[in-house]
């Protein structure tokens, strides 16, 4: 038998049927550092245990017989589905979810316990090993589970909230060395709750009623950077007049409430744009030693909290003549490409970086940096023409 070595890797298993719904997996070790595990492309394990394995590189070595505490956060989307799939405007939305109550792991587990916190007392739950206290359902404790132990439970409960999802978000960040950063986001919003069936019933349902169309999405709240100005909210057919924004110094942000053109009932969609400007002095920095070296720092997350974007594209348009472009993101990207954009009086085109991220959640609300060289002289070239 081999001598036990100190370890700095740990493997996490996710049941394969749920892996496609996994938006984000994060591990926090005792150094309080968030680690993004890497997916292992080993088909044999996947096939054998019907599991997807993620590898975590810990920030330090763990000696044998030593204990290490890890907090694993897995964020899923689309796991809950409406049941019934279609409801009328008068009905409340119920959802169901299937899960594995055991701690699913490639290692044996001594003891595990799972608590489900539901929005309401369940209509149905798998009663085996379960104790229910109102909306909280506890499964377990399970003792001495082998590796890859699993079972299936089903929960069915009322959840009348809308299920907003951004199917696609495109952000265009246009940098001007005249002192302005213009940002425009394009959102494809969908309410993925139970679909509406039957009549719309204007008499019973409108913006102000609470008792009908409970799963309708009537408004959304966004937080824009504190210094943003010139905020607009529009769609393909023009301006939308139902939005409010005010600068809130307490939360250091511009709080914006938008109402889509129509309340989104289950299964409905709507697209919109939100645009705003930022003064360059708060987000565009220049290196003291080298005044041609610029750093653009921008938020890499959505301005809407708690809503996932299935695809998020960030386009950074740098001024014409920017060279030696580098970027740093705090998390891995799905795709990066480079192109040229043309705006007023551009002839060779502006260098543009396109960053694509899938399944964006609140975790992605961080800062990324784009670093480039730009000569101050080239900004006066365009006005001269």
């Amino acid at each position, binding site marked *: 038998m081999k001598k036990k070595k100190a370890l700095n890797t740990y493997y996490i298993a996710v049941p394969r049927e749920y892996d496609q719904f996994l938006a984000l997996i994060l591990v926090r070790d005792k150094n309080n550092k968030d680690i993004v595990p890497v997916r292992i492309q080993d088909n044999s394990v996947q096939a054998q245990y019907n599991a997807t394995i993620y590898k975590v590189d810990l920030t330090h070595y763990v000696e044998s017989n030593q204990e290490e505490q890890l907090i694993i956060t897995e964020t899923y989307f689309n796991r809950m589905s409406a049941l019934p799939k279609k409801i009328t405007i008068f009905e409340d939305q119920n959802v169901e979810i299937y899960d594995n109550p055991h701690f699913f792991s490639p290692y044996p587990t001594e003891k595990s316990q799972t608590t489900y916190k539901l929005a309401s007392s369940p209509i149905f739950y798998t009663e085996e090993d379960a104790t229910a206290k109102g909306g909280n359902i506890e499964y377990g404790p399970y003792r001495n589970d082998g590796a890859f132990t699993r079972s299936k439970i089903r929960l069915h409960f009322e959840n009348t909230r809308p299920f907003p999802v951004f199917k696609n978000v495109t952000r265009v960040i246009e940098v001007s060395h005249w002192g302005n950063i213009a940002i425009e986001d394009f959102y494809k919003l969908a309410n993925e709750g139970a679909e509406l069936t*039957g009549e719309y*019933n204007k008499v019973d349902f409108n913006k102000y009623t609470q008792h009908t169309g409970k799963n309708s999405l009537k408004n959304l709240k966004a937080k824009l950077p504190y210094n943003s100005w010139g905020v607009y909210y529009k769609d393909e057919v*023009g*301006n939308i007049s139902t939005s409010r924004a005010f600068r809130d110094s307490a939360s250091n942000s511009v709080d914006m409430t938008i109402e889509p053109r*129509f309340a989104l009932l289950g299964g409905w*969609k709507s697209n919109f744009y939100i645009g705003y400007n930022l003064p360059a002095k708060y987000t565009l920095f220049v290196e003291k030693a080298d005044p041609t070296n610029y750093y653009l720092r921008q938020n890499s997350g959505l301005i809407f909290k708690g809503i996932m974007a299935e695809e998020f594209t960030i386009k950074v348009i740098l001024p014409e003549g920017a060279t030696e472009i580098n970027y740093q993101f705090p998390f891995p990207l799905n795709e990066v490409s480079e192109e040229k954009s*043309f705006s*007023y*009086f551009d002839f060779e085109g502006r260098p543009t970086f396109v960053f694509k991220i899938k399944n964006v959640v609140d975790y992605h609300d961080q800062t990324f940096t784009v670093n480039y060289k730009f000569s101050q002289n080239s900004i006066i070239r365009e006005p001269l023409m």
Partner: protein
Amino acid sequence: LFFFFFKQKTAYEMLRSLVGSEMCIRDSNEGEASVLDSPFVQTLNSNAQKWAPALRMTILLMISILAVVVRVFSVIRFESIIHEFDPWFNYRTTQYLAKEGVYGLWNWYDSESWYPLGRSVGGTVYPGLMVTSASVYWVLHQLSIPVDIRNVCVFLAPVFAAFTSIAAYLMTNVITKRPEAGLFSALFVAIVPSYMSRSVAGSYDNEGVSIFALVFTFYMYLKAADTGSLLWSCGASLAFFYMVSAWGGYAFIINIIPIYIVAVFLSGNINNRLYVSYTVFYVLGTIYAMQIPFVGFQAIHSSEHMASHGVFIFLQVYMFINWIKQYITKSAFKALTRLVIFTFVSLLVLGFLYLTFTGKTKWSGRSLTLLDPTYAKKFIPIIASVSEHQATTWSSFFFDLHYLVMFTPIGLYYCLKKPSEGKLFAAIYTVLMVYFASVMVRLLLVLAPAVSIMSGMGVSYLIRFLIKNLKNALKSSKKQSSKYNVPSEFSVVGILLISYLVCTYTFHANIAGAESYSHPSVILATRDQQGNRLIIDDFREAYYWLRQNTKPEAKIMSWWDYGYQITGFSNRTVLVDNNTWNNSHIATVGTAMASSEEDAYEIAEKLDVDYVLVIFGGYSYYSGDDINKFLWMVRIGGGVFPHIKEEDFYGSGQYRVDGQASQTMLNCLMYKLSYYRFDEVKTDYWKPAGYDTVRQTEIGNKGYKLRRFEEAFTSERWIVRIFKVKPRENRDGLYIRSKGVINYPSDTATFKEGSSLFTNHKYSTKVVPPKKRKTITVSTA
């Protein structure tokens, strides 16, 4: 809806600059006609003479800027959006053109309109407007100015209004040779309300560019007639070509110019200059016109062009005779003239009669309406139904032209007092247009440049007259002039009065432009109790809902008014739209709206309709809704399908929606969709539930359910209501289409009756007795 006006200040702020330019004009006049002989005034006078051209150009530039600025109220108050109905089609076509290029547009078969027929857009459109804005767009993009195509479209008409005022200046200049008259004309036309109504920012309509083309063609032609130059004649035909490409109203040009030639001939002043200008203009103009696919050979055989052919042939013959005159005796010439004139006239008349009766040449419905104002009312309800085709009322004459209606007779008087060819032209143009504008309210637009030019001439003539008079009066201490004998006090008052009237006109024009004509009509504005401005965006709300939440191939049935908007905003297929080329298709939709739910369902099913869209104002005081337009649907429907009878929709001899309305009315589809569940809401605290705010009455049919349709969406203020056509229930109805097999129902009698409903009626002259309708008990809740 109540439209309240706000930001009135802006209108007045704008006016200050106007008054300024007004002052300039008067200053320059006074400078020219200075009465005192002091050296100071002498210097002033010579300086004014020296600077006059520069001053003139400055004033003209200011007028052009004013023409643009006064038209952007709609963008300031609302947003940069395309207005109304037709502009939406123009905008959509321009987008297509900008993307696909000229050949793409040429070959565009639009399957989104006139389902299931479609529309070949390239051959049925006047492409001038779209090509203009697409060219502007392409040029700007070549210059690396990436403007949005929408903004090009929105701001095109104001820019062309500036061009129009310059063209009016040039034209008046050619007619009178007096730049001050030109400046007055330019000012008048820049802000004349009737022209503004079609050229505010966002009003992206053919007229926006074609009024410029019209005035410019006239200017070029007058220049050609004045000089007899081939170059100007070619220029005139090119301008005419642009006009033909932009608007069907080119028919005015191709008729006014021949009429002018005839008038000059009758006054005995026909000359070689006119001969050259007309011949070149006619030949090139006609060939150019034929290049527009929508016109094509109509330029040869349509009645609108007959006058131009006739005058052309006549001129040739006349000139030929004149030439022969040199070689034969006087008596022989007389006989020859008589013979030729007789043969010519009889040939012309016979030929015209032959062509008309064999149907080789045809008058379009609109042209016939112009010649016989009662024609449309009698025969073509679809033309009569359009509000802009109604006869003009005196109030709209005054509102849209204001004091120009007073100045115009002065101009006409001036034209007749010292006649010249140019003045004769202006007079003919004005008089003809006054007639046409009286027939159709829409043609006030074509009258506007005419009266502006006339008024410019009239006002400048009056001012010149009075100032000369004043000058003479001041000089009169030495010698008495007998020519001008009006007391000088009268002159001063007269000048002040004219200035006052002109200022009032500018005030009125600005306010009319800012308040009346700057509403996009797809966005409405009102005020709440606190006086805050509220935007009512029901149209876009519903159109955008259609765009997002119906399947892309969904077909929408609505009255034709909303066709262009639905294709533009929602990108969905419509059955009928504002290009009212197929009367029977529109009549089918009208029939569906006027039929009972069951009958309408069959029509909808046959036409593959997925959604029915109705506009309903009864909840929110919006009076331009479908119930108010409904009688036209009945008339147009009844014109093709005689079982729809207008009188069936009257209750107690009146068109009404309350308890006394007829059963046909209370149970037709339009009524049922508009008022579906309306009886459950209270629109006014003091009124019963189901109180219609537009018709000011309680509705007559309450508590009914829909069997075949299902409410799919209703906008915030109920203005747009969309209903889904439900699929047939199992084992229900006449036949079920499934996998290409038609299953006949057991009840064949029902089937026969049902399926023959609409085919039998199509061209039958026999009146078919109306189907038995289910009566619905009117609940008295």
